[in-house]
Protein backbone atom coordinates (compact mmCIF):
# COMPACT_ATOMS: atom_id res chain seq x y z
CA UNK A 1 0.00 0.00 0.00
CA UNK A 2 1.30 3.34 -0.88
CA UNK A 3 0.88 6.27 1.30
CA UNK A 4 -2.54 7.77 0.53
CA UNK A 5 -1.11 11.25 0.84
CA UNK A 6 1.16 10.62 -2.14
CA UNK A 7 -1.69 9.75 -4.51
CA UNK A 8 -3.64 12.84 -3.54
CA UNK A 9 -2.85 15.91 -5.55
CA UNK A 10 -0.26 18.08 -3.97
CA UNK A 11 -1.97 20.75 -1.93
CA UNK A 12 -1.63 24.01 -3.80
CA UNK A 13 0.79 26.50 -2.41
CA UNK A 14 -1.37 29.33 -3.68
CA UNK A 15 -3.30 31.24 -1.09
CA UNK A 16 -6.30 31.94 -3.31
CA UNK A 17 -8.34 28.95 -4.41
CA UNK A 18 -9.74 28.39 -7.87
CA UNK A 19 -6.61 28.81 -9.95
CA UNK A 20 -7.37 25.86 -12.21
CA UNK A 21 -10.92 26.93 -12.85
CA UNK A 22 -10.11 30.55 -13.55
CA UNK A 23 -7.18 29.67 -15.79
CA UNK A 24 -9.54 27.39 -17.68
CA UNK A 25 -11.95 30.27 -18.15
CA UNK A 26 -9.14 32.58 -19.21
CA UNK A 27 -7.87 30.19 -21.84
CA UNK A 28 -11.34 29.39 -23.16
CA UNK A 29 -12.26 33.05 -23.32
CA UNK A 30 -9.05 34.15 -25.02
CA UNK A 31 -9.29 31.14 -27.31
CA UNK A 32 -12.80 31.93 -28.46
CA UNK A 33 -12.55 35.69 -28.68
CA UNK A 34 -8.96 36.24 -29.77
CA UNK A 35 -7.27 33.11 -31.04
CA UNK A 36 -10.08 31.61 -33.08
CA UNK A 37 -10.41 34.50 -35.56
CA UNK A 38 -6.64 34.89 -35.69
CA UNK A 39 -6.08 31.24 -36.43
CA UNK A 40 -8.68 31.46 -39.19
CA UNK A 41 -6.48 34.13 -40.79
CA UNK A 42 -3.44 31.88 -40.47
CA UNK A 43 -5.27 28.87 -41.90
CA UNK A 44 -6.48 30.81 -44.92
CA UNK A 45 -2.92 31.94 -45.55
CA UNK A 46 -1.60 28.43 -45.11
CA UNK A 47 -3.43 27.46 -48.30
CA UNK A 48 -1.12 29.68 -50.34
CA UNK A 49 2.10 28.63 -51.95
CA UNK A 50 5.22 30.38 -50.69
CA UNK A 51 5.61 32.12 -54.03
CA UNK A 52 2.04 33.52 -53.93
CA UNK A 53 2.50 34.55 -50.33
CA UNK A 54 5.62 36.56 -51.08
CA UNK A 55 4.01 38.09 -54.14
CA UNK A 56 1.04 39.17 -52.04
CA UNK A 57 2.88 40.57 -49.04
CA UNK A 58 5.99 42.04 -50.63
CA UNK A 59 4.73 43.87 -53.72
CA UNK A 60 5.99 47.47 -53.87
CA UNK A 61 2.53 48.82 -53.15
CA UNK A 62 2.13 46.73 -50.01
CA UNK A 63 5.67 47.55 -48.85
CA UNK A 64 4.92 51.26 -49.20
CA UNK A 65 1.80 50.79 -47.09
CA UNK A 66 3.75 49.01 -44.31
CA UNK A 67 6.18 51.89 -44.26
CA UNK A 68 3.42 54.46 -43.86
CA UNK A 69 1.41 52.43 -41.36
CA UNK A 70 4.35 51.62 -39.09
CA UNK A 71 6.05 55.01 -39.25
CA UNK A 72 2.86 57.02 -38.76
CA UNK A 73 1.74 54.76 -35.88
CA UNK A 74 5.17 55.00 -34.28
CA UNK A 75 5.18 58.80 -34.55
CA UNK A 76 1.63 58.99 -33.21
CA UNK A 77 2.52 56.69 -30.30
CA UNK A 78 5.60 58.77 -29.40
CA UNK A 79 3.75 62.08 -29.57
CA UNK A 80 0.95 60.64 -27.47
CA UNK A 81 3.41 59.31 -24.91
CA UNK A 82 4.93 62.75 -24.46
CA UNK A 83 1.77 64.83 -24.37
CA UNK A 84 -0.29 62.11 -22.71
CA UNK A 85 2.18 62.16 -19.83
CA UNK A 86 1.70 65.91 -19.42
CA UNK A 87 -2.09 65.60 -19.59
CA UNK A 88 -2.13 62.77 -17.04
CA UNK A 89 0.22 64.69 -14.77
CA UNK A 90 -1.95 67.81 -14.85
CA UNK A 91 -5.13 65.83 -14.27
CA UNK A 92 -3.70 63.96 -11.29
CA UNK A 93 -1.54 66.57 -9.62
CA UNK A 94 -3.57 69.76 -9.91
CA UNK A 95 -7.12 70.58 -9.12
CA UNK A 96 -8.71 73.30 -11.16
CA UNK A 97 -12.23 74.26 -12.18
CA UNK A 98 -13.49 71.99 -14.94
CA UNK A 99 -11.01 69.22 -14.21
CA UNK A 100 -13.70 66.54 -14.32
CA UNK A 101 -14.82 67.78 -17.72
CA UNK A 102 -11.28 67.71 -19.08
CA UNK A 103 -10.89 64.26 -17.60
CA UNK A 104 -14.03 63.08 -19.38
CA UNK A 105 -12.85 64.67 -22.65
CA UNK A 106 -9.86 62.34 -22.67
CA UNK A 107 -12.16 59.37 -23.23
CA UNK A 108 -13.97 60.87 -26.20
CA UNK A 109 -11.72 59.33 -28.86
CA UNK A 110 -12.70 55.94 -27.38
CA UNK A 111 -16.39 56.62 -27.69
CA UNK A 112 -16.56 58.48 -30.98
CA UNK A 113 -17.13 56.31 -34.05
CA UNK A 114 -13.84 56.55 -35.91
CA UNK A 115 -15.57 57.53 -39.15
CA UNK A 116 -16.98 60.59 -37.39
CA UNK A 117 -13.51 61.46 -36.12
CA UNK A 118 -12.10 61.09 -39.64
CA UNK A 119 -14.76 63.27 -41.24
CA UNK A 120 -14.43 65.91 -38.50
CA UNK A 121 -10.63 66.03 -38.81
CA UNK A 122 -10.86 66.26 -42.60
CA UNK A 123 -13.36 69.12 -42.34
CA UNK A 124 -11.08 71.03 -39.98
CA UNK A 125 -7.81 70.43 -41.80
CA UNK A 126 -8.81 70.73 -45.46
CA UNK A 127 -7.97 73.92 -47.29
CA UNK A 128 -11.26 75.59 -46.37
CA UNK A 129 -11.39 74.23 -42.81
CA UNK A 130 -10.96 76.12 -39.55
CA UNK A 131 -7.33 75.12 -39.17
CA UNK A 132 -6.47 74.21 -42.75
CA UNK A 133 -7.13 77.69 -44.10
CA UNK A 134 -4.26 79.06 -41.98
CA UNK A 135 -1.86 76.22 -42.68
CA UNK A 136 -2.34 75.95 -46.43
CA UNK A 137 -0.90 79.44 -47.27
CA UNK A 138 2.30 78.38 -45.48
CA UNK A 139 2.55 75.33 -47.68
CA UNK A 140 1.51 72.92 -44.93
CA UNK A 141 -1.04 70.42 -46.15
CA UNK A 142 -2.57 68.12 -43.58
CA UNK A 143 -5.76 66.67 -45.03
CA UNK A 144 -5.09 64.20 -47.87
CA UNK A 145 -1.41 63.73 -46.99
CA UNK A 146 0.55 61.41 -44.72
CA UNK A 147 0.55 64.18 -42.08
CA UNK A 148 -3.23 63.77 -42.03
CA UNK A 149 -2.80 60.05 -41.40
CA UNK A 150 -0.51 60.88 -38.48
CA UNK A 151 -3.02 63.42 -37.08
CA UNK A 152 -5.86 60.87 -37.17
CA UNK A 153 -3.72 58.18 -35.54
CA UNK A 154 -2.67 60.60 -32.80
CA UNK A 155 -6.28 61.51 -32.14
CA UNK A 156 -7.43 57.95 -31.59
CA UNK A 157 -4.40 57.10 -29.41
CA UNK A 158 -4.66 59.87 -26.79
CA UNK A 159 -6.72 58.05 -24.13
CA UNK A 160 -4.49 54.98 -24.04
CA UNK A 161 -1.48 56.79 -22.64
CA UNK A 162 -3.41 59.06 -20.28
CA UNK A 163 -5.53 56.27 -18.85
CA UNK A 164 -2.56 53.98 -18.33
CA UNK A 165 -0.54 56.64 -16.54
CA UNK A 166 -3.22 58.09 -14.29
CA UNK A 167 -3.44 55.29 -11.70
CA UNK A 168 0.35 55.07 -11.49
CA UNK A 169 0.64 58.81 -10.97
CA UNK A 170 -2.03 58.62 -8.28
CA UNK A 171 0.11 56.09 -6.45
CA UNK A 172 3.19 58.24 -6.77
CA UNK A 173 3.21 60.34 -3.65
CA UNK A 174 4.34 63.96 -3.83
CA UNK A 175 6.35 63.24 -0.68
CA UNK A 176 8.89 61.35 -2.76
CA UNK A 177 9.56 64.48 -4.75
CA UNK A 178 9.86 66.48 -1.55
CA UNK A 179 12.30 63.96 -0.18
CA UNK A 180 14.35 64.19 -3.38
CA UNK A 181 14.36 67.96 -3.12
CA UNK A 182 15.36 67.92 0.51
CA UNK A 183 18.23 65.60 -0.37
CA UNK A 184 19.50 68.21 -2.75
CA UNK A 185 18.17 67.10 -6.15
CA UNK A 186 17.20 69.89 -8.50
CA UNK A 187 13.94 69.75 -10.43
CA UNK A 188 15.41 68.17 -13.54
CA UNK A 189 17.14 65.53 -11.51
CA UNK A 190 13.96 64.82 -9.55
CA UNK A 191 12.10 64.37 -12.81
CA UNK A 192 14.63 62.17 -14.57
CA UNK A 193 15.92 60.13 -11.62
CA UNK A 194 12.90 59.86 -9.37
CA UNK A 195 9.64 60.36 -11.21
CA UNK A 196 10.25 59.02 -14.71
CA UNK A 197 11.80 55.69 -13.63
CA UNK A 198 8.59 55.00 -11.71
CA UNK A 199 6.55 55.81 -14.77
CA UNK A 200 8.50 53.99 -17.46
CA UNK A 201 6.61 50.69 -17.27
CA UNK A 202 3.21 52.41 -17.49
CA UNK A 203 4.46 54.77 -20.17
CA UNK A 204 5.69 51.83 -22.23
CA UNK A 205 2.33 50.09 -21.86
CA UNK A 206 0.51 53.26 -22.88
CA UNK A 207 2.80 53.68 -25.86
CA UNK A 208 2.36 50.05 -26.88
CA UNK A 209 -1.43 50.32 -26.69
CA UNK A 210 -1.55 53.59 -28.63
CA UNK A 211 0.85 52.22 -31.22
CA UNK A 212 -1.02 48.94 -31.66
CA UNK A 213 -4.36 50.71 -31.91
CA UNK A 214 -2.95 53.08 -34.55
CA UNK A 215 -1.65 50.17 -36.62
CA UNK A 216 -5.09 48.66 -36.89
CA UNK A 217 -6.99 51.90 -37.37
CA UNK A 218 -9.01 52.13 -40.56
CA UNK A 219 -12.20 54.15 -40.14
CA UNK A 220 -10.79 57.60 -39.51
CA UNK A 221 -7.77 57.36 -41.77
CA UNK A 222 -9.60 56.58 -45.00
CA UNK A 223 -11.36 59.93 -44.78
CA UNK A 224 -8.38 62.16 -44.07
CA UNK A 225 -5.93 60.35 -46.31
CA UNK A 226 -5.95 60.71 -50.07
CA UNK A 227 -5.56 56.90 -50.23
CA UNK A 228 -3.00 57.03 -53.04
CA UNK A 229 -1.26 53.74 -53.69
CA UNK A 230 2.47 54.06 -52.91
CA UNK A 231 1.99 57.34 -51.05
CA UNK A 232 -0.84 57.65 -48.56
CA UNK A 233 -2.32 54.19 -48.47
CA UNK A 234 -2.28 52.45 -45.08
CA UNK A 235 -2.01 48.67 -44.80
CA UNK A 236 -5.57 48.11 -43.50
CA UNK A 237 -6.84 49.85 -46.64
CA UNK A 238 -4.76 47.56 -48.83
CA UNK A 239 -6.40 44.63 -47.02
CA UNK A 240 -9.88 46.04 -47.64
CA UNK A 241 -8.99 46.67 -51.28
CA UNK A 242 -7.94 43.04 -51.66
CA UNK A 243 -11.22 41.91 -50.12
CA UNK A 244 -13.19 44.10 -52.52
CA UNK A 245 -11.51 42.15 -55.29
CA UNK A 246 -12.45 38.82 -53.71
CA UNK A 247 -8.78 38.16 -53.02
CA UNK A 248 -9.37 36.67 -49.58
CA UNK A 249 -6.02 34.91 -49.50
CA UNK A 250 -4.02 37.98 -50.41
CA UNK A 251 -5.87 39.95 -47.75
CA UNK A 252 -5.27 37.40 -45.02
CA UNK A 253 -1.64 37.04 -46.05
CA UNK A 254 -1.05 40.75 -45.45
CA UNK A 255 -3.05 40.55 -42.24
CA UNK A 256 -0.80 37.71 -41.10
CA UNK A 257 2.32 39.75 -41.75
CA UNK A 258 0.86 42.67 -39.81
CA UNK A 259 -0.12 40.36 -36.97
CA UNK A 260 3.35 38.87 -36.72
CA UNK A 261 4.98 42.29 -36.83
CA UNK A 262 2.64 43.74 -34.20
CA UNK A 263 2.96 40.69 -32.01
CA UNK A 264 6.74 40.75 -32.03
CA UNK A 265 6.76 44.48 -31.35
CA UNK A 266 4.36 44.13 -28.43
CA UNK A 267 6.43 41.25 -27.09
CA UNK A 268 9.55 43.37 -27.36
CA UNK A 269 7.86 46.21 -25.53
CA UNK A 270 6.76 43.83 -22.78
CA UNK A 271 10.32 42.58 -22.38
CA UNK A 272 11.56 46.16 -22.26
CA UNK A 273 9.02 46.84 -19.60
CA UNK A 274 10.16 43.91 -17.51
CA UNK A 275 13.72 45.08 -17.88
CA UNK A 276 12.88 48.65 -16.91
CA UNK A 277 10.98 47.40 -13.88
CA UNK A 278 13.95 45.44 -12.72
CA UNK A 279 16.56 48.11 -13.21
CA UNK A 280 14.73 51.24 -12.30
CA UNK A 281 13.33 50.22 -8.96
CA UNK A 282 14.26 52.79 -6.39
Amino acid at each position, binding site marked *: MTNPAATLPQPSRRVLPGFGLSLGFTLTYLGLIVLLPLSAAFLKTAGMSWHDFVA*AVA*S*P*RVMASYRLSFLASLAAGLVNSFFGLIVAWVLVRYSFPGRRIVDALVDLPFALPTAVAGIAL*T*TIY*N*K*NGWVGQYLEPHGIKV*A*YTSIGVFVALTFIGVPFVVRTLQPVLLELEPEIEEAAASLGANRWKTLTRVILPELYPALLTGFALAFARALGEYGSV*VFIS*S*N*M*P*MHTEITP*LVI*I*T*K*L*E*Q*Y*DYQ*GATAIATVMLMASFSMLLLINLLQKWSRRYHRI
Partner: protein
Amino acid sequence: MKLRHLLFPIIALTLATGAAAKSTELLNVSYDPTRELYVDFNKAFIAHWKATTGEDLTIKQSHGGSGKQARGVIDGLQADVVTLALAADIDAIYEHGKQLPQDWQKRLPDNSTPYTSTIVFLVRKGNPKGIKDWDDLVKPGVSVITPNPKTSGGARWNYLAAWAYAKHKQGTDQAAQAFVTALYKNVPVLDSGARGSTTTFVQREIGDVAISWENEAMLALKEFGREKFEIIMPSLSILAEPPVAVIDRVAKKKGTTAVATAYLEYLYSDEGQEIAARNFYRPRKPEIAAKYASTFPKLELVTIDGEFGGWAKAQKTHFADGGIFDEIYQNK
Protein backbone atom coordinates in the same frame (compact mmCIF):
# COMPACT_ATOMS: atom_id res chain seq x y z
CA MET B 1 -39.93 44.70 -10.65
CA LYS B 2 -37.35 45.57 -13.24
CA LEU B 3 -37.97 42.29 -14.99
CA ARG B 4 -41.66 43.06 -15.38
CA HIS B 5 -40.75 46.33 -17.07
CA LEU B 6 -38.55 44.48 -19.47
CA LEU B 7 -41.03 41.73 -20.15
CA PHE B 8 -43.61 43.83 -21.89
CA PRO B 9 -41.36 45.26 -24.62
CA ILE B 10 -39.91 41.81 -25.20
CA ILE B 11 -43.35 40.28 -25.70
CA ALA B 12 -44.42 43.21 -27.86
CA LEU B 13 -41.32 42.85 -29.99
CA THR B 14 -41.83 39.12 -30.42
CA LEU B 15 -45.44 39.65 -31.47
CA ALA B 16 -44.48 42.42 -33.85
CA THR B 17 -41.80 40.39 -35.60
CA GLY B 18 -44.15 37.44 -35.71
CA ALA B 19 -46.78 39.55 -37.41
CA ALA B 20 -44.30 41.02 -39.87
CA ALA B 21 -43.12 37.57 -40.86
CA LYS B 22 -46.57 36.77 -42.22
CA SER B 23 -46.41 39.30 -45.04
CA THR B 24 -43.78 38.67 -47.68
CA GLU B 25 -40.50 40.45 -47.37
CA LEU B 26 -37.92 41.15 -50.06
CA LEU B 27 -34.36 42.32 -49.59
CA ASN B 28 -32.86 44.30 -52.43
CA VAL B 29 -29.07 44.54 -52.13
CA SER B 30 -27.92 47.43 -54.26
CA TYR B 31 -24.99 49.80 -54.79
CA ASP B 32 -24.37 53.30 -53.56
CA PRO B 33 -26.22 55.87 -55.68
CA THR B 34 -29.49 53.95 -56.14
CA ARG B 35 -30.98 54.83 -52.73
CA GLU B 36 -33.38 57.43 -54.07
CA LEU B 37 -34.32 55.34 -57.11
CA TYR B 38 -35.35 52.30 -55.09
CA VAL B 39 -37.18 54.27 -52.43
CA ASP B 40 -39.48 55.49 -55.23
CA PHE B 41 -39.63 52.22 -57.10
CA ASN B 42 -40.38 50.10 -54.03
CA LYS B 43 -43.34 52.28 -53.17
CA ALA B 44 -44.71 51.84 -56.67
CA PHE B 45 -44.13 48.09 -56.75
CA ILE B 46 -45.71 47.47 -53.35
CA ALA B 47 -48.87 49.24 -54.56
CA HIS B 48 -48.78 47.33 -57.86
CA TRP B 49 -48.33 43.96 -56.11
CA LYS B 50 -51.16 44.69 -53.69
CA ALA B 51 -53.45 45.65 -56.58
CA THR B 52 -52.68 42.54 -58.66
CA THR B 53 -52.36 39.81 -56.00
CA GLY B 54 -53.77 41.36 -52.82
CA GLU B 55 -50.63 40.43 -50.94
CA ASP B 56 -48.84 42.77 -48.57
CA LEU B 57 -45.20 43.23 -49.29
CA THR B 58 -42.31 44.85 -47.47
CA ILE B 59 -39.11 45.63 -49.31
CA LYS B 60 -35.87 46.34 -47.56
CA GLN B 61 -32.95 48.06 -49.20
CA SER B 62 -29.26 47.75 -48.53
CA HIS B 63 -26.72 50.06 -50.12
CA GLY B 64 -22.97 50.25 -50.26
CA GLY B 65 -20.03 49.91 -52.62
CA SER B 66 -20.98 47.40 -55.32
CA GLY B 67 -18.08 45.02 -54.64
CA LYS B 68 -18.69 45.09 -50.91
CA GLN B 69 -22.38 44.32 -51.41
CA ALA B 70 -21.58 41.38 -53.67
CA ARG B 71 -19.20 40.05 -51.05
CA GLY B 72 -21.97 40.36 -48.46
CA VAL B 73 -24.25 38.18 -50.61
CA ILE B 74 -21.47 35.64 -51.19
CA ASP B 75 -20.88 35.49 -47.44
CA GLY B 76 -24.55 34.83 -46.72
CA LEU B 77 -26.49 38.12 -46.79
CA GLN B 78 -30.06 36.92 -47.54
CA ALA B 79 -30.71 39.02 -50.64
CA ASP B 80 -33.70 38.04 -52.79
CA VAL B 81 -32.51 40.33 -55.56
CA VAL B 82 -29.30 42.19 -56.28
CA THR B 83 -29.14 45.40 -58.31
CA LEU B 84 -25.44 46.19 -58.64
CA ALA B 85 -23.17 48.58 -60.49
CA LEU B 86 -21.61 46.12 -62.89
CA ALA B 87 -22.03 42.61 -64.20
CA ALA B 88 -18.61 41.56 -62.86
CA ASP B 89 -19.92 41.79 -59.30
CA ILE B 90 -22.89 39.51 -60.01
CA ASP B 91 -20.54 37.19 -61.92
CA ALA B 92 -18.51 37.06 -58.72
CA ILE B 93 -21.60 35.90 -56.82
CA TYR B 94 -21.91 33.04 -59.30
CA GLU B 95 -18.20 32.29 -59.22
CA HIS B 96 -17.58 32.38 -55.47
CA GLY B 97 -20.96 31.51 -54.03
CA LYS B 98 -22.91 29.72 -56.81
CA GLN B 99 -26.06 31.37 -55.49
CA LEU B 100 -27.35 31.91 -59.02
CA PRO B 101 -26.70 30.25 -62.40
CA GLN B 102 -23.90 31.30 -64.70
CA ASP B 103 -26.25 32.55 -67.43
CA TRP B 104 -28.09 34.93 -65.07
CA GLN B 105 -27.57 37.86 -67.40
CA LYS B 106 -29.65 36.21 -70.16
CA ARG B 107 -32.76 35.81 -68.00
CA LEU B 108 -34.04 39.37 -68.36
CA PRO B 109 -34.13 41.62 -71.43
CA ASP B 110 -31.29 43.98 -72.41
CA ASN B 111 -28.49 42.11 -70.60
CA SER B 112 -30.57 42.23 -67.42
CA THR B 113 -30.10 45.99 -67.26
CA PRO B 114 -33.48 47.77 -67.16
CA TYR B 115 -31.84 51.19 -67.07
CA THR B 116 -28.45 52.48 -68.12
CA SER B 117 -26.27 55.38 -67.30
CA THR B 118 -23.06 56.86 -68.54
CA ILE B 119 -20.01 58.71 -67.33
CA VAL B 120 -19.94 62.51 -67.44
CA PHE B 121 -18.01 65.41 -65.93
CA LEU B 122 -19.16 67.59 -63.07
CA VAL B 123 -17.43 70.99 -62.98
CA ARG B 124 -17.77 74.13 -60.91
CA LYS B 125 -20.12 76.87 -62.15
CA GLY B 126 -18.80 78.81 -65.13
CA ASN B 127 -16.34 75.97 -65.83
CA PRO B 128 -13.28 78.05 -64.80
CA LYS B 129 -10.78 75.57 -66.25
CA GLY B 130 -12.64 75.36 -69.55
CA ILE B 131 -13.18 71.61 -69.48
CA LYS B 132 -14.89 70.32 -72.61
CA ASP B 133 -13.62 66.81 -73.21
CA TRP B 134 -11.35 64.06 -71.90
CA ASP B 135 -8.25 65.82 -73.32
CA ASP B 136 -8.71 68.67 -70.87
CA LEU B 137 -8.44 66.28 -67.94
CA VAL B 138 -4.82 65.39 -68.59
CA LYS B 139 -3.63 69.01 -68.86
CA PRO B 140 -1.18 70.08 -66.18
CA GLY B 141 -2.81 72.01 -63.35
CA VAL B 142 -6.22 70.39 -63.73
CA SER B 143 -7.24 68.47 -60.64
CA VAL B 144 -9.52 65.49 -61.28
CA ILE B 145 -11.68 63.67 -58.72
CA THR B 146 -12.51 60.00 -59.31
CA PRO B 147 -12.74 57.10 -56.85
CA ASN B 148 -10.42 54.11 -56.63
CA PRO B 149 -11.29 51.56 -59.36
CA LYS B 150 -10.08 48.78 -57.09
CA THR B 151 -12.94 49.42 -54.69
CA SER B 152 -15.57 51.32 -56.65
CA GLY B 153 -17.70 50.01 -59.51
CA GLY B 154 -18.38 53.54 -60.74
CA ALA B 155 -14.66 54.28 -60.82
CA ARG B 156 -14.09 51.31 -63.10
CA TRP B 157 -16.59 52.73 -65.57
CA ASN B 158 -14.78 56.12 -65.30
CA TYR B 159 -11.43 54.54 -66.03
CA LEU B 160 -12.73 52.48 -68.96
CA ALA B 161 -14.49 55.50 -70.47
CA ALA B 162 -11.21 57.45 -70.42
CA TRP B 163 -9.41 54.47 -71.93
CA ALA B 164 -12.00 54.08 -74.69
CA TYR B 165 -11.75 57.76 -75.58
CA ALA B 166 -7.96 57.66 -75.91
CA LYS B 167 -8.08 54.39 -77.83
CA HIS B 168 -10.58 55.81 -80.31
CA LYS B 169 -8.62 58.99 -80.76
CA GLN B 170 -5.09 57.64 -80.92
CA GLY B 171 -5.64 54.06 -81.94
CA THR B 172 -3.27 52.04 -79.76
CA ASP B 173 -3.40 50.49 -76.31
CA GLN B 174 -0.05 52.07 -75.45
CA ALA B 175 -1.44 55.52 -76.16
CA ALA B 176 -4.52 54.73 -74.11
CA GLN B 177 -2.37 53.60 -71.19
CA ALA B 178 -0.25 56.75 -71.39
CA PHE B 179 -3.43 58.81 -71.43
CA VAL B 180 -4.95 57.10 -68.41
CA THR B 181 -1.63 57.36 -66.55
CA ALA B 182 -1.53 61.10 -67.20
CA LEU B 183 -5.13 61.35 -66.05
CA TYR B 184 -4.49 59.63 -62.70
CA LYS B 185 -1.44 61.88 -62.16
CA ASN B 186 -3.98 64.69 -61.86
CA VAL B 187 -6.04 62.90 -59.21
CA PRO B 188 -5.33 64.23 -55.70
CA VAL B 189 -7.67 61.97 -53.70
CA LEU B 190 -8.81 58.41 -54.41
CA ASP B 191 -12.01 57.85 -52.46
CA SER B 192 -13.24 54.33 -52.00
CA GLY B 193 -16.70 54.92 -53.49
CA ALA B 194 -18.69 57.15 -55.85
CA ARG B 195 -20.55 58.94 -53.05
CA GLY B 196 -17.28 59.68 -51.26
CA SER B 197 -15.92 61.29 -54.40
CA THR B 198 -18.99 63.45 -54.82
CA THR B 199 -18.57 64.62 -51.23
CA THR B 200 -14.89 65.41 -51.78
CA PHE B 201 -15.72 67.45 -54.85
CA VAL B 202 -18.89 69.15 -53.67
CA GLN B 203 -18.37 69.68 -49.97
CA ARG B 204 -14.61 69.74 -49.51
CA GLU B 205 -14.28 71.76 -52.73
CA ILE B 206 -11.30 69.74 -53.90
CA GLY B 207 -10.66 69.38 -57.62
CA ASP B 208 -11.69 71.14 -60.82
CA VAL B 209 -13.67 68.28 -62.32
CA ALA B 210 -15.27 65.12 -60.96
CA ILE B 211 -15.72 62.13 -63.25
CA SER B 212 -19.06 60.73 -62.22
CA TRP B 213 -22.08 58.62 -63.00
CA GLU B 214 -24.52 60.72 -64.98
CA ASN B 215 -27.25 60.02 -62.41
CA GLU B 216 -24.95 60.97 -59.53
CA ALA B 217 -23.95 64.23 -61.26
CA MET B 218 -27.59 65.12 -61.95
CA LEU B 219 -28.49 64.33 -58.35
CA ALA B 220 -25.66 66.56 -57.13
CA LEU B 221 -27.04 69.35 -59.30
CA LYS B 222 -30.50 68.82 -57.87
CA GLU B 223 -29.31 68.66 -54.26
CA PHE B 224 -26.65 71.37 -54.24
CA GLY B 225 -27.97 73.73 -56.87
CA ARG B 226 -27.45 74.59 -60.50
CA GLU B 227 -25.85 77.85 -59.44
CA LYS B 228 -22.82 75.97 -58.12
CA PHE B 229 -22.13 73.18 -60.60
CA GLU B 230 -22.45 72.28 -64.26
CA ILE B 231 -22.48 69.00 -66.11
CA ILE B 232 -20.18 68.63 -69.13
CA MET B 233 -20.84 65.86 -71.62
CA PRO B 234 -17.66 64.46 -73.14
CA SER B 235 -17.61 63.66 -76.87
CA LEU B 236 -17.40 59.93 -76.12
CA SER B 237 -18.29 57.89 -73.09
CA ILE B 238 -19.21 54.38 -72.07
CA LEU B 239 -22.63 52.79 -71.81
CA ALA B 240 -22.77 51.82 -68.16
CA GLU B 241 -25.11 48.89 -67.60
CA PRO B 242 -25.94 48.27 -63.95
CA PRO B 243 -27.53 44.81 -63.98
CA VAL B 244 -30.20 43.20 -61.79
CA ALA B 245 -30.71 39.54 -60.84
CA VAL B 246 -32.73 37.24 -58.60
CA ILE B 247 -30.54 35.32 -56.16
CA ASP B 248 -32.08 31.89 -56.81
CA ARG B 249 -30.83 30.09 -53.76
CA VAL B 250 -32.17 32.67 -51.30
CA ALA B 251 -35.46 33.20 -53.15
CA LYS B 252 -36.09 29.45 -53.34
CA LYS B 253 -35.43 29.04 -49.64
CA LYS B 254 -37.69 31.94 -48.71
CA GLY B 255 -40.33 31.04 -51.31
CA THR B 256 -40.08 34.45 -52.95
CA THR B 257 -38.99 33.47 -56.46
CA ALA B 258 -42.25 34.64 -58.08
CA VAL B 259 -42.45 37.98 -56.37
CA ALA B 260 -38.72 38.67 -56.74
CA THR B 261 -38.93 37.98 -60.47
CA ALA B 262 -42.02 40.17 -60.78
CA TYR B 263 -40.17 42.91 -58.89
CA LEU B 264 -37.32 42.97 -61.38
CA GLU B 265 -39.65 42.62 -64.39
CA TYR B 266 -41.60 45.62 -63.16
CA LEU B 267 -38.46 47.72 -63.64
CA TYR B 268 -39.07 47.24 -67.39
CA SER B 269 -42.70 48.37 -67.23
CA ASP B 270 -43.80 51.88 -68.18
CA GLU B 271 -44.03 52.93 -64.57
CA GLY B 272 -40.66 51.39 -63.64
CA GLN B 273 -39.00 53.10 -66.59
CA GLU B 274 -40.59 56.43 -65.68
CA ILE B 275 -39.30 56.15 -62.13
CA ALA B 276 -35.80 55.31 -63.39
CA ALA B 277 -35.86 58.33 -65.71
CA ARG B 278 -37.09 60.64 -62.95
CA ASN B 279 -34.13 59.47 -60.85
CA PHE B 280 -31.75 60.25 -63.71
CA TYR B 281 -31.18 56.74 -65.03
CA ARG B 282 -31.53 56.37 -68.78
CA PRO B 283 -34.62 54.28 -69.51
CA ARG B 284 -34.39 51.37 -72.00
CA LYS B 285 -37.93 51.63 -73.39
CA PRO B 286 -37.87 53.82 -76.53
CA GLU B 287 -41.16 55.61 -75.75
CA ILE B 288 -40.08 56.60 -72.25
CA ALA B 289 -36.59 57.47 -73.48
CA ALA B 290 -38.13 59.76 -76.10
CA LYS B 291 -40.20 61.47 -73.45
CA TYR B 292 -37.11 62.26 -71.38
CA ALA B 293 -34.85 63.01 -74.35
CA SER B 294 -34.21 66.56 -73.13
CA THR B 295 -32.89 65.27 -69.79
CA PHE B 296 -30.42 62.88 -71.34
CA PRO B 297 -28.32 64.45 -74.12
CA LYS B 298 -27.20 62.13 -76.89
CA LEU B 299 -23.51 61.26 -77.01
CA GLU B 300 -21.37 58.58 -78.57
CA LEU B 301 -21.35 55.57 -76.28
CA VAL B 302 -19.13 52.51 -76.49
CA THR B 303 -20.01 49.25 -74.74
CA ILE B 304 -17.96 47.10 -72.43
CA ASP B 305 -18.51 44.05 -74.63
CA GLY B 306 -17.60 45.81 -77.87
CA GLU B 307 -14.63 47.73 -76.56
CA PHE B 308 -13.14 45.53 -73.86
CA GLY B 309 -14.50 42.04 -74.60
CA GLY B 310 -16.74 41.89 -71.53
CA TRP B 311 -16.26 42.49 -67.85
CA ALA B 312 -14.27 39.39 -67.01
CA LYS B 313 -11.59 40.35 -69.48
CA ALA B 314 -11.56 44.05 -68.56
CA GLN B 315 -11.31 43.20 -64.89
CA LYS B 316 -8.36 40.91 -65.45
CA THR B 317 -6.40 43.22 -67.75
CA HIS B 318 -6.98 46.46 -65.94
CA PHE B 319 -7.96 46.08 -62.31
CA ALA B 320 -6.64 42.76 -61.02
CA ASP B 321 -3.46 42.82 -58.95
CA GLY B 322 -0.55 43.42 -61.28
CA GLY B 323 -2.95 44.83 -63.89
CA ILE B 324 -2.61 48.10 -65.74
CA PHE B 325 -4.06 50.18 -62.93
CA ASP B 326 -1.37 48.93 -60.55
CA GLU B 327 1.29 49.83 -63.10
CA ILE B 328 0.05 53.40 -63.21
CA TYR B 329 0.83 53.88 -59.55
CA GLN B 330 3.94 51.80 -59.26
CA ASN B 331 5.73 53.61 -62.06
CA LYS B 332 4.71 57.00 -60.84
